[in-house]
């Protein structure tokens, strides 16, 4: 395992290895609950919390766990964390709990949780694992919220609809009616809309990545040229 800095961990989780847009893990909740910004945000926050709890717990118990039984131990830890988050949401955000329904307990099956436990938390210290959990969660949340925003605007002409489920009474004032008297665009709300939207998001991400790569190469080559001009013996490129 290459030693990774905090900045690298954050960048990996949110962008380079984004769970929703690159690794394509957790597609089921991503596609099912991204029909509005608030739903996406709710599930994204719950997943982030679970990832943080699991990563911290697993990196803490590392010395106690033998490698042969690590997977069952991960499963126990993840199941406990998800159950605790589920109970807390049921108690404190009953409205959102009703909307997200089965997808809260199903965080258990989100591969990114056990994936981060195995690939990162079991090999790194508490602080780094915590940052990794938050970064991975934020990446998933970003995908959920972006997809939710696209589908909500196209499908219902609103943004932050039903925000009171997440933020209490004052959340009602957050709801933006972007298009008055919008009749709705069914495709965006139905599952096919989720697949099409996700496809577009991945395409946009790939375009951005290609651009930054090209400009990075450009910077590198100009820098190389300057270097060649200033120092007569050209450096051997390997």
């Amino acid at each position, binding site marked *: 395992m290459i030693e990774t800095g905090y900045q690298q961990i954050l960048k990996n989780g949110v962008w380079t290895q984004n769970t929703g847009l690159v690794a394509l893990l957790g597609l089921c909740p991503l596609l099912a609950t991204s029909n509005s910004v608030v739903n996406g945000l709710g599930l994204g926050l719950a997943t982030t919390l679970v990832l943080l709890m699991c990563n911290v717990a697993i990196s803490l118990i590392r010395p106690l766990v*033998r490698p042969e*039984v690590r997977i*069952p131990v991960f499963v*126990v830890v993840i*199941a406990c964390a998800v*159950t605790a988050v589920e109970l807390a949401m049921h*108690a404190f955000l009953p409205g959102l709990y009703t909307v997200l329904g089965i997808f809260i307990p199903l965080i258990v099956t989100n591969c990114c949780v056990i994936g981060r436990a195995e690939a990162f938390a079991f090999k790194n210290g508490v602080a780094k694992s915590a940052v990794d959990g938050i970064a991975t969660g934020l990446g998933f949340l970003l995908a959920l919220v972006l997809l939710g925003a696209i589908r909500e605007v196209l499908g219902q002409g609103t943004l932050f609809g039903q925000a009171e489920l997440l933020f209490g009474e004052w959340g009602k004032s957050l709801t933006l009616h972007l298009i008055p008297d919008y009749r709705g665009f069914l495709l965006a709300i139905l599952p096919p809309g989720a697949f099409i939207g996700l496809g577009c998001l991945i395409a946009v991400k790939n375009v951005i990545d290609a651009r930054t790569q090209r400009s990075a190469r450009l910077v590198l080559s100009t820098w190389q040229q300057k270097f060649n001009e200033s120092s007569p013996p050209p450096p051997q490129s390997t």
Partner: protein
Amino acid sequence: MKTILHSMGMAALILTGFSVVGAGLVAVTYTSTKDIIAEAQQAALEASLNQLVPANRYNNRVAEDTIEVVAPEWLGTDQPVTIYRARQNGQPVALFATPYAPDGYSGPIQLLIGVYVDGTLAGVRVLAHKETPGLGDTIEEKRSPWILAFAGKSLGNPPLDRWKVKKDGGIFDQFTGATITPRAVVKATRKFLEYVQSHQEQLFAGDILK
């Protein structure tokens, strides 16, 4: 052999330890959130009941004044359905139940129906459904006022043979592109009214009905 047994034992021990600790943590969370969850559920129930019957019309704790009934042919489910009774100073005012319309377009539709003691509907709301978004979901109150048309209706008003959607010769609107959903809701509401009419005394008494 001994080392294998030893490592197996250690593994089992570790796993047992984590399971016990994990179960303990879940138990602690459960006990500390149990009352809050029950309270939130009761508040949600009362809020939805008060949409149908104003809170000042009754003064008992509706969530605790309940009976369970099993009546598949009337309530659309073979599971027990809870009937909530609203009373003012002990006198029956209204009752609520959450029966199902079993013949929705994509599965059963769970309704919340309130009926005053004189047999008129306090109102109908949709609690859960899987109808097509944009077509069948017009039965939701937040999408259309259609469901509000039930308030004040009773078995004699309209007469029994007009308790249908307009397409079938009744008085209730259907939606463009979705007739099955409103038809199912109208039918389930009528059935519930018939059930209440024929069982009124037992429903306000304390026994469990079969």
